[in-house]
Structures are given as C-alpha cells and as structure tokens.
C-alpha cells in the first residue's frame, strides 16, 4: 500500500539501525519514552528492540487510551447499561477491561445489558435514530484523535434535534499526561526513572500539531520527536533523539512531517473547543488525579452529557492488587515485572487494562512473543 510499504522496508531499517549504533556513545544510556499506544504496538510487532543497540532503551508511556481509563469510569458505563437501561454504544477495545465486582462491559452484556460495539461514533448516532423510543449513550474514550469525532457527533445530534442521544465523556489530553510524568517524583528525582526524550504520538499530533510540546521540551529540557506509526518512522525518530541527546539539544522535531504541521488540524481543534471544556481534574489509571487533563461537555450542550442526564457520580476504585498497570503506565515498571504476566493474566483473560487493547504494553509484549524475557526473569527468580 502506498505510504505504508515504503515505511516498512527492512533494508532501510537496517541502515538506520547502523546509523543509531554508530551515533550512540557507549558511555551513556538513552532512555526514551514512546507516549503513544500505536508506537508501543509497532515496537513489539516489528521487534524494534532487536534492532536497537543496548544503550537505547524504550519505555512505554501512558498513551494507550483503554489502559488509562480507570475502573470507576467503566463502572459508570456498566451502571448506565444495567440500571438505567440505556443502549450503550462503545468502541470495541473497552468491552473486556475488568471493572468492579468481576464485571466488564462484555460480562454486563451477558447479564442482559444492551451494549453494542461500534466502529465509529456515527454508528451510535444511527442506533439512536433507529430506536427513538430508547436512550442511547456513547461511551466516549480516547485522546485528541477520538475527541473531534465525538464533537462532530454532538453537533450533529444538536442540529438534527436528536433527543435520545448522549455521551459519557472520558476524553483525555496528551500534553497534560506527559507533563504529569515529567513532574512526578519518579522522574524528577535524581536516580529515579531516567527519561532522556520522548517519541511524540502520530495521530494525536496530526490534530494538536507540534506546538503543544514546545513548552515542556524547553521547561524540562527533554527532546521530543514526533514520529509516524511505521517501523522506519520509529527508527528514524530514535536516531533523531539520539542526536539531540548527544548535542545537548531539547527541541521539538517532527519526523512525521507528511501528516503533522506545527498548527495541527485547526478545523478539528475549533470543533472540539465549541463542544468541550477543560475538566478541573480527572483520574487516570496509573497517574491518579491529574488536574486539567481531560475534557467535559460544555453546559450549552449539557443535554447531550450523560453525566448530567443521569446524575452520575464518579467513584474511585482501587486496581487489582497484583496488577502493575499503574507502574507500567508511569514507565516505572515493565510488563515482565508483573508476577502474573502471561500466567494468570493473558489477553484471553485480562486482569488489568494493559492486557486488553493491542496497544497496551502487556498485550503487545504478550502477543508478539516478547515475553521470552519473562521466561528468563521467572526462572532466574525461581526458588
């Protein structure tokens, strides 16, 4: 396929790998965090760690939309389906995330909840049009890529006068999460998680542009390179990061210039600003409550806001104790550090959110056989 195959060429990948190997200085370590779940997936799928010199280590960040959704939010969606009797439309990734009381959306569906998986929010609108006698709620999750489609849907519902459609808004913001990680004691204290730079997200950046990263690149003196999704994009971005570190630069560079501009998609940004406003605080799995890190529906579109319509109260729920998703999402631990990785917790029977979506760190490691490092770790710790 055009614009895809060229960016997967193995020979070119080897060439960039050689360039990275030649550029790293053996005396130092390069710890880069990829923020985006799509990148986590690509790294595992194409086995990029095998192409990188040992000096370069990739750390997964909290960029998988399903993974950062806390249990309490899924509980709200389940409540809407089971207690309020709405038709709950959701992206497919969320249905297997474990929630309270041994439930998940999928299990709630088995208990009679009318839960429907949709590919696009426009499908949820269609469900609402087709069932004028039922209430339809769209479970809106994700970063800046899924937010504009939700905004379009709410505006569409308003212009059609669709009365039985509302949105449970759980949209979150990328720059706020990166900021939170940089600010956390785990990163800020000397000797803690070392972070030498970020691979900036691909799709998110097409919408928000490269400008939002400039502030923290300067403030925290960390380089950021925005990268496309293909393996060569990732390799090239890592090379660019290595060069910045070597030269002591902390700039925002854009490897994905074929799709990302400094301004981003202004039309999408305007639609989002029309419908949504900042939420003072939002709980993330792994990061806890993060101020100004998520969006809610503006009052003028309040009738499309499921939280207002059903007076939903968010209740914090602790994660499963054995699950290390929180630490993994902060970049402090790796999937293989979790005692139940690949044994009790598998994609078929996930215990935590990181094992659910293919963009989750645990699922990506598991699916692409990178848990061979797990086997080593387990046997070396055996009594």
């Amino acid at each position, binding site marked *: *396929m*055009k*614009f895809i195959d*060229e*960016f997967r060429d193995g*020979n*070119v990948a*080897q*060439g*960039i790998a*050689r*360039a990275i*190997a*030649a*550029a790293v200085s053996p005396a130092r370590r390069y710890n880069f965090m990829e923020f985006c779940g799509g990148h986590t997936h690509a790294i595992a799928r194409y086995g990029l760690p095998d192409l990188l010199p040992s000096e370069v280590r990739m750390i997964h960040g909290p960029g998988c939309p399903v993974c950062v959704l806390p249990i309490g939010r899924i509980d709200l969606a389940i409540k809407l389906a089971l207690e309020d009797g709405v038709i709950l439309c959701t*992206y497919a990734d969320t249905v297997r995330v474990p929630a309270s009381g041994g439930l998940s959306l999928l299990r709630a569906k088995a208990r009679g909840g009318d839960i429907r998986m949709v*590919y*696009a*929010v*426009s*499908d949820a609108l269609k469900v609402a049009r087709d069932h004028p006698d039922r209430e339809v709620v769209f479970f809106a999750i*994700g970063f800046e*890529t*899924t937010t*504009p*489609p939700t905004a*379009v849907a709410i505006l569409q519902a308003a212009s059609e006068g669709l009365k039985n459609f509302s949105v449970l808004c759980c949209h979150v913001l990328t720059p706020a999460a990166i900021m939170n990680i940089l600010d956390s004691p785990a990163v800020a204290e000397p000797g803690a998680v070392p972070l030498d730079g970020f691979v900036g997200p691909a*799709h998110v950046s*097409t*919408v928000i542009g490269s400008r939002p990263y400039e502030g923290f690149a300067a403030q925290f003196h960390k380089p950021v390179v925005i990268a496309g999704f293909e393996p*060569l*994009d990732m*390799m*090239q971005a890592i*090379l660019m990061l290595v060069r910045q570190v070597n030269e002591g630069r902390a700039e925002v560079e854009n*490897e*994905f*210039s*074929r*799709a*990302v501009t400094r301004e981003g*998609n202004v*039309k*999408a940004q305007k*639609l989002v600003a029309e419908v949504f406003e900042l939420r003072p605080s939002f709980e993330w799995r792994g990061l806890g409550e993060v101020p100004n890190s998520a969006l809610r529906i503006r009052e003028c579109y309040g009738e499309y806001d499921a939280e207002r319509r059903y007076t939903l109260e968010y209740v914090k729920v602790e994660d499963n104790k054995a699950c290390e998703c929180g630490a993994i999402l902060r970049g402090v631990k790796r999937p293989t550090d979790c005692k139940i990785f690949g044994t009790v917790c598998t994609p078929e029977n996930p215990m935590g959110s990181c094992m659910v979506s293919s963009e989750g760190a645990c699922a990506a490691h598991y699916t692409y056989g990178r848990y061979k490092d797990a086997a080593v770790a387990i046997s070396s710790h055996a009594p």
Partner: protein
Amino acid sequence: MVEINDNDVAIVELGGVKKDISLALVEGVVVGDYVIVHVGFALTRLDPEEAARTLALMAEAGLMEPAA
C-alpha cells in the same frame, strides 16, 4: 480516497477494501488524496512531497554512517 459524496462522506480504499469515512474534520481534500483515517474520520491529508523527503532522509541515514 476514491469518491466523495455530499454530507462530507467519502469512500476510501484501504488495501482493496472500500470504506465510508467522514470528512467533517478536514478541509479541501479531493479524490486521489491520501488521508489518515481514525475511528471512521479522516484526520489529515498526507503530503506526498514531505513523505518523499522523509524517505530520502531515512535512506541517507543508512548510507552516511559506515557499518560498525
């Protein structure tokens, strides 16, 4: 992108499969453009010149530094 209807809906081809997507988030795209699609919406147009430039940089990276 192979066809554009009214109402901001376009038909795109993804590896031989045709799919309806919304153009509500982009401006000025025309048939023949390449777009990045996410959850049923075109997010942005791909710039072929920038793509070529990036590929050239990648190829160059492999040539510049001799094999270690």
